[in-house]
């Protein structure tokens, strides 16, 4: 097993584990912290793919900014233990879990059977595309249009957030 593989399996396992923790913990703070861990694992995986920019962004934006905001909100709202809501094991949960598991199997089966068709990792290409410069150039040439659309999306989000959150509307 090469170091790269070791990294992949290690980060993957921790990532999945922390992901499971996110949905199973009853304490919202625990969930949020598990999510931070999950983000870190993802960032690590990006790094193994030579995608430094994404890895850094992942940590700065998600793990840093967004999750901190999450935690603030959770603590400000002072949510109690949510045991009351999650204790019951309803038919819906069982069916839902069953279906989700079925879907997982399906997707795994398809991915396994299609493994041969995957493009092979091209080291040189990966090194040359993961950097900040390349992404920056792409973002302002080929993907300029989507980039600008994203700004519209954010503006709309701000308007929406203000509308929903403003204390008193005139």
């Amino acid at each position, binding site marked *: 097993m090469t170091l790269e593989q070791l990294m992949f399996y290690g980060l993957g396992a921790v990532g999945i584990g922390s992901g499971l923790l996110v949905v199973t913990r009853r304490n919202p703070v625990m969930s949020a912290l598990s999510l931070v861990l999950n983000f870190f694992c993802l960032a690590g995986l990006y790094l193994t793919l030579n995608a430094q920019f994404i890895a850094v962004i992942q940590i700065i934006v998600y793990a840093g900014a967004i999750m901190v905001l999450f935690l603030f909100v959770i603590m400000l709202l002072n949510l109690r233990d949510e045991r009351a*809501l999650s204790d019951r094991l309803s038919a*819906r949960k069982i*069916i*839902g879990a069953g*279906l*989700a598991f079925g*879907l997982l199997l*399906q*997707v795994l089966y398809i991915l396994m059977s299609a493994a041969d068709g995957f493009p092979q990792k091209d080291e040189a290409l990966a090194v040359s595309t993961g950097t900040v410069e390349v992404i920056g150039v792409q973002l302002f040439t080929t993907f300029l249009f989507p980039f600008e659309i994203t700004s519209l999306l954010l503006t709309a989000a701000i308007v929406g957030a203000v509308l929903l959150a403003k204390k008193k509307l005139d």
Partner: protein
Amino acid sequence: MIPYAPLIVLFPLVGFLLIALAGWKYRSERLIGIVGSGVVGLSFALAVGVLLEMAALPSDARSWSVDLFPWIDTFTGTAGSFGISVGYQFDQLSILMTLIVTGVGFLIHVYSIGYMHGDEGYWRFFAYLNLFIFMMLNLVLANNFLLMFLGWEGVGLCSYLLIGFWYQKTFTGDAGKKAFIVNRIGDFGFLLGMLLIFKTFGTLEFSAVMSGASVMTAGTSVAFWIGMLLFIGATGKSAQIPLFVWLPDAMAGPTPVSALIHAATMVTAGVYMVARCAPLYALSPDALLVVAVIGGVTAVFAATIGLVQNDIKKVLAYSTVSQLGYMFLAMGVAAFSAGIFHVMTHAFFKALLFLGSGAVIHGMHEEQDIQKMGGLKKYMPVTWATFLIGAIAIAGIPPFAGFFSKDEILWYAFSSDLGSPALWLLGALGALMTAFYMFRLVYLTFYGKERFDHHHVHPHEAPKTMTIPLMVLAFLSIVGGFLGVPPALGGGHIIEHWLAPVFAPAQRTLMLSAHASHTAEYILMAVSVLIAVGGIYLARRWYLEHLDVPDSMAAKFAGLYRLLWNKYYVDEAYDAAVVKPIQRLSDAFLWKVFDMKIIDGAVNGSGWLAQTAAQWLRKVQNGVAQSYAVIFVGGILVVVSALLFF
């Protein structure tokens, strides 16, 4: 006149628009009546002009079609069969139907001026009537199935609006809805038939489909199914078994509507459609057999119900269903022109009977129960005389109109290669009952003791605008038959000659042999006259002379009587077999199972749903949205499996 022929269709539309847009503001009955009737009269006059010019042409030039504008465009790059124009076909058949529609329609418009006098919805009534005439003309003049379907749906729509015209009575609204829904089942057949025609012939133009049909091999299952599906449409519109249930209820509408739509014109649309598609039906003798049997059975079935009804309009309604059965019997034995002939004579005498019944109801202050009438002859002599003429005509006494057309149908049912003595017997049985119940109606209404309350009811004759149309229709009911005097009686049978070129392709495909001898025809003719006289005699004996007989009969055969009185419980059966299960399926199963809100809420704990909205958060967290997500995931599972594993 011929270049202006499409205007025939346009006039009623103009009338409709004028009345609909301005009528509710300027509620002048006089003006509305004149405009409403005038436009139909104009159409009639123009149609007469076109007919005269058409008659002057050689017989192979009497058919032409006019495309006004493209309705649905063709796609370039694909076979150019998608497109359909708004276009009208003028030929011997369609012009004859146009004359019936506009002619009888005009008379009924005039009658309505008097009948609807003082009604709050006067303008609305005339707007609907004009719209109806417009749609009906589209139906009969269309040169393709799609435009015909437009008319087909349009007349259904108008019929629906007019049945429910007096919405103050709850019943009329329900009757309207029933009419519409039952007709939708028929339309479903029509639409599927259209799809199958499109798939088979690649077009919906009559001329192309019919010429395609003339080169097809006969007896294929496609031809059978096209015939069957179209016939399902016809059973809906023309009230045949099993879709006849709406027509008797439709009598809830104003009487002129019953006369125009539910007797003279719209209900014959199915017959017209079968005649129009004669080349298609000729390809499948099996389909024709089904048509004949359904027609014959309906003729008898509806007549038996008519025997015991007491509502004057209900009797006429079942009589209409029965007479339509005759027309389909004619179609089924490939006697197309005889069927159309009966459409025409029936339009005269049935419109007459309905308008007469309207005059009676009018004079009796909205009383419809014939058990509460009697002896009206002296109060309304014109109505009596004309009604009697109508009854004689429908009973089939020569030389009134009904005799010739009905007798011709019976003759073909017996003698045609597609006919059989059994079909003749059905027809003859129906004829006996028709004569009986019609004269039962006449005797109970106009003769005998006056059974109404003299203090409250003062019978009176109808105004002129109502009696003049009655007289015109009575005249037509007397002489209308002379257009179709058979050769056996030394006549030229003008109608058959006139229509022969239209049905020639169908007859060629069918290759029917020549008819049997004149002797047989004379014998059958005599038999049918005897039957009619017998029916009348029986009615006279029971309902004028020995009044106790009907009651003792009803007591003796109580079960049968109840069965007939309740119309064989068909409505109840449909309700139990079709309506209820669908409602239950929708309400109990699909909605409640699939709509998880109900599962999570109302059903499992009705208090849950009623909780104050302040707890919406809990609702979202604890219930609904997750359930939706579960279904969602199930859906993904299905889509992925279907796409990758099948």
